[in-house]
């Protein structure tokens, strides 16, 4: 069973990184978004440093919503989802493996890129570390919430915007605690470790809820 899950994971990663996979596009979008912000707000570095954590978190949130709808619908279109449904491995675990692969292909690059983009916004070195740490703990929650949306939109031809609309309200706690922990790291009025632990807790909880709900959705919709 482990071998089967590893096969699903490796397959999804390979698809994501090959031509037409779209693994890098999220980071490019992230970069573009962070570049656009100073044009709207002005090149005032102290102000940008103050709103930097929020900008990076919102950028990462929006970038991780891109491409969510393809997690299952690509497999639905080419028929491989039927094979996965027939597999002796529980669909919940397959969904978890696919979610993990999606996170490695789209979430992890955002975590790595965020400190570099933080330099553009004039963040202090401590903030850069904090933003990478909070995103590392928080982006899995975004991906696994998104997994549910991806499963709900499995049979829809253009589900991308719908998935974003369904998932955004659910990700508010991750955003609140992620930004709070980042601000707390710089010695703000809020503590650092409590929101950070809550972000981790949300990731762990969605790691369970996400695949179970996604598998249920796929089974129910494809009855």
């Amino acid at each position, binding site marked *: 069973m482990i071998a089967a899950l590893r096969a699903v994971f490796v397959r999804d990663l390979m698809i994501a990184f090959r031509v037409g996979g779209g693994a890098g596009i999220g980071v490019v979008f992230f970069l573009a978004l962070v570049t656009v912000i100073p044009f709207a707000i002005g090149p005032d570095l102290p102000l940008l440093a103050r709103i930097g954590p929020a900008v990076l978190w919102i950028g990462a949130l929006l970038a991780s919503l891109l491409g969510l709808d393809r997690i299952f619908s690509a497999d639905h279109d080419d028929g491989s989802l039927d094979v996965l449904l027939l597999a002796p491995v529980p669909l919940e675990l397959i969904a978890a493996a696919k979610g993990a692969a999606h996170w490695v292909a789209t979430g992890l690059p955002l975590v790595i890129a965020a400190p570099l983009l933080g330099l553009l916004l004039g963040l202090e070195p401590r903030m850069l570390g904090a933003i990478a740490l909070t995103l590392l703990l928080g982006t899995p929650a975004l991906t696994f919430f998104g997994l*549910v949306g991806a*499963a*709900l*939109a499995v*049979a*829809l031809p253009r*589900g991308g915007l*719908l998935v974003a*609309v*369904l998932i*955004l*309200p*659910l990700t*508010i*706690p991750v955003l*609140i*605690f992620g930004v*709070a922990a980042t601000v707390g790291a710089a010695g703000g009025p809020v503590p650092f470790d409590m929101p950070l632990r*809550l972000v981790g807790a*949300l990731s762990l909880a969605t790691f369970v*809820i996400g695949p179970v*709900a996604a598998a*249920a*959705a796929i089974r*129910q*919709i494809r*009855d």
Partner: protein
Amino acid sequence: MAFYELANPHRFMTLARCLTPACAVAAVVLLAVGFVLGFRAPADYQQGETVRIMYIHVPAAWLGLGIYTLMAISALGTLVWRHPLADVAAKAAAPIGAGFTLICLLTGALWGRPMWGAYWVWDARLTSMLVLFLLYLGILALWRAIEEPGQAGRAVAILTLVGFINVPIVKFSVDWWNTLHQPASVFRIDGPTIHPAILAPLLVTTLGFAALFVALHLAAMRNEILRRRVRTLRLLAAAEAR
């Protein structure tokens, strides 16, 4: 009559046809009495006359939350018991719940302008109501996105349940984030802290709005069942014509 007997849509239609006018009459009477009582109730010593908007605002907030709970129970009915009317109930409830949540937000904004000095503040309770409204809109969008009613019902049921699990987390996180709204004053362990002269009309209007919801919900459910019958008949006619 047992719950499962309602699984027969024909029996439900008969029952709903009798109950809808009764609930509508009850709603009109209760709301009329409640509003009269509300206008006669003493004004608040701090808030003055503006307190009277509470007789609409608070029932709308309760119903907005209650209808989402009803939809979550219906979602269980769809997924677990496969009750044939569960997804009809969920579908009919969603726009009404969104409407009550919107009424709650709008009346709150109208009250907030004279009292807090702003139509909107990013306070915890306001924000969580706004998130609830967004959840309603997402559910409505998903209903409209999937063509086949049964399939749409099951997809929406899962979304409703995931949202329902998440609502307490959102509530907690938003409370932690920022709070300005007054704490709960009716449902408390040590009894309501609100004066009985103001509480009585509030409870009457709440019953009135609840009766209004039942009347609207039953009518919407009947419409949805008829709409599905029309759809089936059309599909059959199209299949025969081929």
